[in-house]
């Protein structure tokens, strides 16, 4: 932990020293103290004024959690079913492999047409970004579960539903959690881009960064980016704790 903080501090120092050389004008690359000052401004004044950083962050978080949550609710059962049925896998994998490489951002026009500007279209785009990694990780997790474990509950007369709940779901949990982590990351990237294209409510980190860019406040653009990084770190920490708790048997 201390070493990681050391690396982080060293990078900030390098950035500060680079800014002192003034190779890149201050308006394009503000120094770390200027970004920190902008961060505090965003916390108390907001961008646009009155729309403060915590509000933007909460709206963005809500969209990410709703989209990723929906992706987990749909992706985990889909992965469980596909993972345990070679027949269904051979039928549906080509469709998944066709849809998967289409970037979620390419869906933006359709999302706006179908759901309009606002919460639903952002959640839909995040869902698309997070769904496929979760399905594929769950599917591969199910495949890696030792068949002996399945036999050990079939001997007690377990039906397919019980096999999913008592063996395949917990057995695939390490892969599922990896899929959710990847899905959250993609969901977050998708969200900010989706907010660039227009959010009606006037809240969202992507929306805030676009506003700062329009006013040529590079310091606030970078402070917004830092806010995304901090939230990302926090989410990664929470996911790590969750994984440690759920996988304590490993």
């Amino acid at each position, binding site marked *: 932990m201390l070493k990681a903080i050391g690396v982080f501090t060293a990078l900030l120092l390098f950035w500060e020293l680079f800014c002192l050389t003034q190779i890149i004008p201050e308006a394009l690359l503000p120094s770390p103290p200027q970004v920190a000052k902008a961060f505090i401004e965003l916390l108390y004044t907001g961008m646009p004024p009155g729309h403060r950083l915590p509000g933007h962050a909460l709206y963005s978080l809500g969209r990410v959690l709703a989209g990723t949550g929906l992706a987990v609710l749909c992706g985990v059962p889909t992965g469980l079913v596909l993972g345990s049925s070679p027949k269904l896998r051979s039928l549906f994998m080509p469709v998944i492999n066709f849809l998967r490489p289409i970037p979620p951002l390419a869906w933006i026009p359709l999302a706006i047409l179908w759901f309009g500007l606002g919460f639903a279209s952002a959640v839909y785009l995040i869902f698309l970004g997070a769904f496929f990694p979760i399905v594929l990780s769950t599917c591969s997790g199910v495949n890696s579960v030792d068949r002996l474990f399945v036999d050990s*509950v*079939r001997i007690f007369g377990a039906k397919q539903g019980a096999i999913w709940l008592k063996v395949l779901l917990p057995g695939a949990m390490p892969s599922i959690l990896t899929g959710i982590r990847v899905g959250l990351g993609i969901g977050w990237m998708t969200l900010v881009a989706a907010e660039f294209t227009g959010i009606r409510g006037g809240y969202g980190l992507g929306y805030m960064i676009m506003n700062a860019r329009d006013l040529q406040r590079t310091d606030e653009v970078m402070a917004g980016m830092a806010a995304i990084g901090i939230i990302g770190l926090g989410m990664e920490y929470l996911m790590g704790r969750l994984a440690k708790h759920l996988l304590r048997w490993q």
Partner: protein
Amino acid sequence: MAASLTIKGLSKSYPAQKDAVPLLVLESMDFHVPAGSIVSIAGLNGSGKTTLLRIIAGLESPDTGSMLIDEKIKTSSSGRNIGMIFQEVALLPWRTVRQNIAVGLELDERPKTELEDLVDDFITAFGLADYAGKYPKELSGGLRQKVAIARTLAPGPGVVLMDEPFSALDCQTREEMLSFLLKVWAKRQDTILFVTHNIEESLYLSDQVLVISPKPSRVAEIIPVTMPRPRDKTSLEFNMLRRRIIDVLRRLSEANP
């Protein structure tokens, strides 16, 4: 409640790969395991012993033949009232000792209080109280097999199948587990069908030893073991029976090189 097990004309073959002929693994197997007895199946490696147990357990289906539990024909895999202990310990790694013992009872949809009481009884009787909250990876090989036995016996199966359950254990632990199994059996009088390639193990435990031939397997000889328990492995009778089984296996091996 211990039940009898009867196997009649059981055959199993696996489909041919490319141009090869289908592989006949079991051919017209017939035998009977009386209720409350221990019967061992002894045979050379690869003689289809595990396949036989998997068919009886309902994990695979036979080509022909029937299976009767307490003289009633059983066809579907569910409702067979059979428990099985596998060669490799198949405890669910994400469940604690207590949760592993409970798994069969949960699937049996037992009321919560009955389930808790039964699990507690097994934990106490099997000396697992100190390990109830531990995960399988935290246990020794012997303890894991104890948990596997408790898990299998908890729902009260009519017939218990054991597929070389102690083969991965060291000598000392194996001896301890054999004594432990006999102690449990003496109290409960379960019907046990025990597969092993260890002749001493089969003679130490069983009321009967079924010697099976190499593939395609059938019952070549039924050897009753009438010595009182606990058995002395150094006794003359024990060693004469041991010699007899070795002779049968050698003869079978020479007949099917």
